[in-house]
């Protein structure tokens, strides 16, 4: 993450340099060295600010999850007075949470898998073939991505109840796929376009059918793109709240984000805040881990060396 951020900063160089130079110029006629140094410290300050801004809430939740339920409201410290795993124990002992976790993982994985497979095929066709309606598909995909999710929830609720999809896994998987597809298609077709045509032609001359060329050459080369698309789709499904809360009613399909809202804590005499925080940490950590794991994979350009270097 650091490297991409750094390069992005470098990419923005000119404008910031202008600002830095102006500042330095006011002081001593603006030598290049002073401008560059001033610019650098400015960027460091900005990065730290953004880092605090984004990391602080997460840290806060983590700290809350380690506090004893009674501690909230009684003591003001950021760090817990007594570190405890009680909340996590409570969370995993609750059926509501464990079944929601299973639902979330199952639904997200299935939706991601199906969505990415479809998106790969569609994106390949869009990148490689000339066919009527290609523009229409792309613009429709974009239109779907733009569509406000909330406006669809009402009709879907009614429809799903009528056809018997309400409060089932497929009832969530289907809308997830349709909303994740556009993004995946756009990401993947960009990746496919990067792969030189010759790769495929070489495979064909070597004796591969179109399908073999696609499976043995194009897909492995587009792996970083497929990973990116898969991760984005997975996060979309994993984080969704609106569908999760509207299209489910029981433990049979309710995903974690929705389940958190129904959380009641260990006993009815306690505020469930710390337990909810523990549950939130449990569902946030996998996401962070996945990003950290695959980020290198996504960034790595697998295609280097395919053509002359």
């Amino acid at each position, binding site marked *: 993450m650091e490297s991409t951020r750094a390069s992005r900063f470098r990419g923005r160089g000119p404008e910031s340099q202008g600002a830095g130079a102006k500042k330095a110029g006011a002081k001593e006629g603006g030598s290049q060295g002073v401008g560059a140094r001033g610019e650098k410290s400015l960027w460091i300050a900005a990065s730290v600010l953004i880092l605090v801004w984004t990391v602080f809430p997460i840290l806060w939740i983590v700290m809350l999850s380690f506090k004893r339920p009674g501690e909230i409201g009684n003591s003001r410290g950021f760090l817990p007075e007594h570190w405890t795993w009680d909340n996590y124990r409570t969370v995993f002992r609750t059926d509501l949470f464990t079944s929601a976790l299973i639902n979330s993982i199952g639904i997200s994985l299935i939706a991601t898998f199906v969505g990415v497979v479809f998106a790969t095929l569609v994106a390949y066709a869009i990148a490689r073939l000339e066919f009527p309606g290609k523009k229409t598909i792309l613009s429709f995909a974009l239109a779907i991505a733009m569509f406000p999710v909330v406006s669809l929830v009402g009709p879907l609720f009614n429809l799903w109840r009528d056809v018997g999809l309400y409060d089932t896994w497929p009832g969530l998987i289907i809308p997830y796929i349709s909303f994740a597809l556009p993004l995946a298609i756009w990401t993947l077709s960009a990746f496919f376009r990067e792969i030189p045509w010759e790769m495929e032609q070489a495979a064909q*001359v*070597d*004796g591969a059918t179109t399908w*073999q060329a696609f499976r043995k050459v194009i897909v492995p080369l587009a792996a970083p793109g497929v990973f990116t698309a898969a991760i984005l789709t997975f996060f979309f499904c994993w984080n969704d709240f609106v569908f999760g809360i509207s299209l489910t009613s029981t433990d049979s399909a309710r995903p974690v984000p929705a389940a958190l809202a129904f959380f009641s804590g260990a006993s009815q005499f306690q505020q469930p805040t710390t337990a909810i925080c523990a549950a939130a940490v449990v569902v946030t950590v996998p996401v962070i881990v996945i990003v950290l794991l695959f980020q290198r994979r996504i960034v790595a350009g697998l295609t280097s060396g395919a053509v002359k270097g």
Partner: protein
Amino acid sequence: MAAITMKNIVKQYGDGFPAVNDVSLDVRDGEFMILVGPSGCGKSTLLRMIVGLEDITSGEMRIGEKVVNTVAPRRRNLSMVFQNYALYPHLTVYENIAFPLRLAKRSDEEVRRRVTETAKLLELTEHLERKPANLSGGQRQRVAMGRAIVRQADAFLFDEPLSNLDAKLRGQMRTEISRLQRRLGVTTVYVTHDQTEAMTLGDRVAVLRKGILQQVGSPRELYEQPVNLFVAGFIGSPSMNFLPASVDGTFLETPIGRFDLRDERKASAVGDRDVVLVGVRPEDFEDASLVSEDKRAAGALVRVHVDVTEWLGNEQYAYVPYEAPRELADQLRELSRELDSDQMRTQAVVSLDASSLITAGDEAELWINTSRLHIFDPATGENLTRDEARVTELADHATRVREAQRRAQRPDAPRTERGAPPGRRRAAAGAGRVRGRRPRGRWRRWGGSGGSRAGGGSWRCRRCSPTGGRAGGPRRRPGTSRRSAPSARTR
């Protein structure tokens, strides 16, 4: 192995532009055919039509006995080396080479055997487990070739395979390709825009211009007996000088002087044309003071003003500017633009002996070898003085060369394999030399006579390989560098 026969092949793109126009070409079984021409002449398109990556608009393409117009590339059993190699970056070198075999569902044992063999032939053995991204340009090129030769394809197709390599490596790979082709004896079609490659590699060369086939023939035929202005200007570097001349009996009045043609056949070929273009190769000029008396009488002498000289050590170039009539000058400029050189002024390029003391800015007396000059019709560009008898002679000669090469390669092949495979000589250095004594001696015998090619060898691209063409050029393998010269192989 198979012959490739093209009959009236046309490729038209959507806008009706014919990239390839009515090309009929016959590539014989086992022949090394070069397609050459300036950029945009349709040579790559033609190659891609052979392999099946482009549709054929009309005409007939045969590989062996089979018409393949609508056959999918994978069913044509051809292998191709792409300009950018098109290696699979996610596979190791081993798997890259094994790819065609895996697709053909060969047994693991056979794949291993053949890949190992191929790798040994191309000196890739120690790189087999690496990924293409970690290889140098030359190594990638060899991997691409390995992938092409690993299976028994009917023909090899090369699409400018050396254009991404630096000059030194290009020279080495050129000999490598030549050696491989002679050894495997597989029909090969090779697209290039590089003259040296065209001249040194091919059994025959086909020159294309704007999608139209101009001439097919042995490199020597193209050089000595071009059919038109375009071929004459395209083949040879520096290219042939075209001097506008008005005809006066057997005398030609050119901007650099008036001289006698001394050849009845050529004089009669001119007919009743008033104006012609006289084509003289740079090396057919010489400093008159260095030409012996009897030789001098066989040519013509002209006095010219030398503008610039370039001394290169082994030879010397002199530039002689001249004024040409407006409409002919325009035509010549158009031609030079088409040949990718875009010469600004009309000037003759003259190649002189390095010992010549002609100085820039002075008047100088030059001798022209009039027996070698060609006369072209300025309107059609047709060569009026093409010597058909000589053409036949050269064609016979080319056939003999080819047969001799094949004969020499066949009995040699098994022995070289056991002793020191040519490809491994570099690595085997001393040891290989001892073990492979016999074949090497043979090579040397052929190579040794290379000195006698003197005049005939001048078609080498002098400008791009001032040393590369000499015996001592690529120092790593003196033997092979000589071997690459077809004329040396003939005797």
